[in-house]
């Protein structure tokens, strides 16, 4: 069989099909702003009673940057983000501070001027999708749950759940590495570990395109690890996607040591690498959701459906 034929048999979802069949049909353009603007997402989720990372300060104009930094004076660590950033671009993490000096991951120190320059670049739109004027905001720096801490370095691991028509279909955890400079992006060198939806246990992991069993920095096993508070992770991921009116969403959840599971952000164009981390194709699961989901299903039923589909997919009973 040809390579493409084998991929089709496995149900691997390609970019053209994701765009042409799923996102174009289920994610209407007019609903994008609710997820492309992170502050808007937070407002939406807060209204629905879903936990998000607390916002410490906001700067909408260049003139507000000074005030934002003043508001941050009482915090030793925080994260500055663009409201319209994509793929983790423009995110500046401060781990520690010493007066007007701030330490970034990797032990690099920057001064207050550099921090204010970065915030102003954000507001000018340097990291926004279309280069339009943006908003900079500071978020509390989350601390990884103890169970996740030993399999991540320099950053906070998150859990990506792809939710299709309200049903969770696939999930992975993204573990930052030294090589990814603390970021949770697979293409920058983070570890991606597929999670079995029904059990909440990781079953496979890749890093930089290769299968791995341990975290490259800590040497701790990344496979066969139970994600803490898994039921809660699925619940907030599904309920968050319900708030967006989007049918094909990637929900990023962080399990914070203090606040527990909270939604970091939502994505209307979730990437396809999750299939590599799970060593499974999305298409059979999406097709199963199309035939089994009912409009009147509430979120607990949909989660149960997603877990059942994932179990059957692994058993080879789908497609």
């Amino acid at each position: 069989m040809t390579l493409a034929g084998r991929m089709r048999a496995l149900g691997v979802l390609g970019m053209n099909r994701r765009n042409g069949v799923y996102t174009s049909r289920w994610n209407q353009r007019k609903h994008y702003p609710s997820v492309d603007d992170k502050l808007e997402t937070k407002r939406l989720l807060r209204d629905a009673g879903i936990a998000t990372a607390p916002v410490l300060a906001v700067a909408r104009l260049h003139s507000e940057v000074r005030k934002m930094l003043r508001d941050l004076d009482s915090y030793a660590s925080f994260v500055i983000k663009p409201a319209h950033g994509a793929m983790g671009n423009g995110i500046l993490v401060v781990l520690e501070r010493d007066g007007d000096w701030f330490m970034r991951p990797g032990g690099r120190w920057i001064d207050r001027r550099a921090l204010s320059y970065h915030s102003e670049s954000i507001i000018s739109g340097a990291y926004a999708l279309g280069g339009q004027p943006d908003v900079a905001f500071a978020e509390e720096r989350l601390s990884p749950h103890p169970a996740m801490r030993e399999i991540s370095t320099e950053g906070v691991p998150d859990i990506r759940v792809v939710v299709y028509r309200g049903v969770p279909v696939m999930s992975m955890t993204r573990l930052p590495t030294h090589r990814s400079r603390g970021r949770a992006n697979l293409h920058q060198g983070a570890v991606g570990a597929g999670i079995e939806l029904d059990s909440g246990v990781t079953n496979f992991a890749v890093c930089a395109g290769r299968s791995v069993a341990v975290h490259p920095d800590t040497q701790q096993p990344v496979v066969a690890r139970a994600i803490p508070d898994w039921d809660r992770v699925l619940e907030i991921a599904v309920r968050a996607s319900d708030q967006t009116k989007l049918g094909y969403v990637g929900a990023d959840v962080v399990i914070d040591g203090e606040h527990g599971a909270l939604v970091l952000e939502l994505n209307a164009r979730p990437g396809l690498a999750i299939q590599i981390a799970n060593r499974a194709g999305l298409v059979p699961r999406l097709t199963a959701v199309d035939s089994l989901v009912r409009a009147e299903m509430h979120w607990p039923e949909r989660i149960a459906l997603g877990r059942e589909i994932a179990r059957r997919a692994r058993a080879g009973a789908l497609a």
Partner: protein
Amino acid sequence: MNRGAALTGSLLVAIGLSIFAWKTLVLNLPVLPSNVENLWRVELEIDARGSGQRGSVRAALPDSDSQQEIFDERQSSDRLVFTIRTEKGGQRTGVWSGKFDGVHNLSHGFRVQLSEEPLPLPTDVRKAPPKEIVEEYGHTSGRFPSDAPEIRELLANVAPPNPTDPLGQMRVLLGYVTDEILTASTGSDDALLTLAAGEGSQVGKARLLVALLRAAGYPARVSAGLRLRADKEARETVWAEAWVGGDWIGLSPSLGFFGARPPDLLALRTGSSTLVEETGLDALSSRYRVLRESLRADEVASFMVPSNPLLAAISLYRLPVGSQSALRILLVFPIGALIIALIRNLIGVRTFGTFMPLLISLALRELPLGLGMGLIGSVIALGIVSRFLLERLQLLLVPRLGVLLCLVVLAITAQSLLGRTYEVKDLFASVLFPVVIMTMLIERFSITTAEEGMPSAVRRLAASTAAAVCVYPIFRIQALEHLMFGFPELVLTVMGLLVWIGGYTGYRASELWRFRGLVTPREEEVS
């Protein structure tokens, strides 16, 4: 692919191809232009301004002769009356007359087929000129003072009359005026002043030569016309003509021809050096626009014998010269979009921006590929270096981009100052536009470098450049340009293909590589 896209695509492809087939098979239009050499479209554009008074504009109109064939003449008269006046010697003049009120845009266009055949010099040189030619072109006058003592003296010194070899004598006179009198655009138009100063304008030199020829006993006159050059402004030129052996032959002290006119010279007027004149106007400006053409033989036929108005009406070749050259570029754009769609959606190459590669290749259209790549390379290298230096200054985004733009402009200016000449028709068209594109490219590159690291940024840049190189040829392939220009209905076919690609939901070639780990046997687990 969904049914709608498949159907719409097929429909568009079918419509485009069937019109194409109808034109080629039923109407017998050749797919590519037949090899027509030295065919030109010339258009005289006149802006005439008046304030309500009566007046006229007169322009020399060309005639067909043994060296040029004029056809498909058209003119616009913009509220005035256009008439053609034919003088005694056969010279035609187009006259726009009436009340000039405000600005009138007048034009006269035609096609000309210039002969490449060398014309032999007359052999029967002793044949006496007819009486009316001698009367008209043999006498002395203010413009051609053949009786002036300086002229007589010069003639006696340089080329004493030689009844057995008039051509030789003419050649010597031509050689004298060509070599001993300098050509200066600021020089005099007067024959005697030109002789006295040792330099003169093209007109001055031509008049001096005519005076010398008349003094030597040959009927002579000045003629004026245009040098036609592809993609360059047509230049007016003036030369002398002498009657010998039963016909007029040309002698040009500025272009240096003797006998037949060179194959790029269009004769517009005989007996005078003025091409466009006016009376009673406030202001007048005129210019000639020239386009080299490769008409299909059947189209030439349809213009010369307008028996097939349908064929003529659907030809873009009938448009004014200016919009033709713009349309030629415009009509290959869809092909570029098609290639970009192929590269991005079927192959899956990540480039900077959607149509950035198309813009890059358009920007480099006028340059040879090597030079274009060199330009990109050097400009980008400079941009990257200065971008990282600018990073230290911590400037805001828009001013920073502005500074970058200034640096790119300076770099290109420096390049031309350092003697790097671009063999292009218009430095502005080929440089101004690229400057903006290059600046955007540099900015994207450096942001990607900061965000995703240098390797990723270099990969994207290489992919963008490679895509631009793939698109680049379509702007250079003449045949493609002719194909799209001659058969614009093919745009529909391209649209259909784009709809097909848009409806394709299969894998991209790059995804076969990306997801290869999913389909290969699980050897890693074994080890």
